[in-house]
């Protein structure tokens, strides 16, 4: 496995690509299979706590929550739920860097980058506005 954190945008984009029609037509093993497909493509199952939070925040129904949990359950939360003070400090430092294009930073992205850095992982993201 590569030491790469898969970010929220990547997990959401993959979910949307796999999904065809209403969520009610899917069962937990279906979405677990979607996750395994992404893990096989990326050769990494690593996510961090803010990714779990961001995907959970995007849920719109009880069934959606059950399926999102099944999807996330296939990944490894490498910080084990422990977001440290130093992660918050680093996220704040990243947030305070205003890019030339003036675009707002995203709390989750700053925190994902901070935790990945601490745990010596790279970050795979399709998000062009990921803080740099």
């Amino acid at each position, binding site marked *: 496995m*590569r030491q790469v954190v898969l970010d929220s945008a990547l997990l959401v984009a993959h979910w949307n*690509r796999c999904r065809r029609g209403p969520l009610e037509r899917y069962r937990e093993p279906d979405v677990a299979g979607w996750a395994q497909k992404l893990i096989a*493509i990326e*050769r990494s199952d690593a996510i961090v706590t803010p990714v779990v939070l961001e995907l959970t925040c995007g849920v719109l129904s009880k069934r959606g929550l059950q399926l999102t949990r099944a999807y996330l359950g296939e990944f490894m939360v490498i910080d084990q739920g422990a977001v440290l003070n130093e992660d918050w400090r680093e996220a704040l430092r990243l947030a305070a860097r205003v890019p030339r294009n003036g675009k707002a930073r995203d709390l989750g992205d700053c925190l994902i980058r901070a935790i990945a850095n601490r745990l010596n992982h790279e*970050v*795979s993201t399709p998000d062009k506005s*990921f803080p*740099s």
Partner: protein
Amino acid sequence: MGKLSFYRQARQDGGVRTAIEVNEDTVLHHFEEGGDESDPSLLWWVDLRCEGPGLPKGAEEARRWLLTHAGSIKEGFGRLAEKLHAGLDVDLYPLQWSDFHGLPKRVKATAVCSAIRRVTARDIATVVRGLAGHWEEIIANLPALPAAATGG
């Protein structure tokens, strides 16, 4: 069924990681540091993933295998680079390419590459062409991990 993987990936801060894995354990690895400000988000990555019977089980055996089959691998990477240069799209989903010739029967090799942010297919073509052009040098010079790090 054994697995042998080579990968190279570049970070936003300029750092480049190159490694070989045997059955998903890293056995050879090198990281070129980037700039002072660490930024771990990836710009691009390229994998060569081999699966099949008879693949090597150890670090030096893996190195020898990849050097022995350098001709087929370089030729495959060369053709992939041409396709990429011609405009083959590398978008959100990684591109998967399995058209390698001359490898042992029953070994399936797949090149997988992904570009993120402003990196274009032509940029990736340059990367893949670079792998083809310097394959032996890259593989021969990859340091082995200490025994403790590989669990050996």
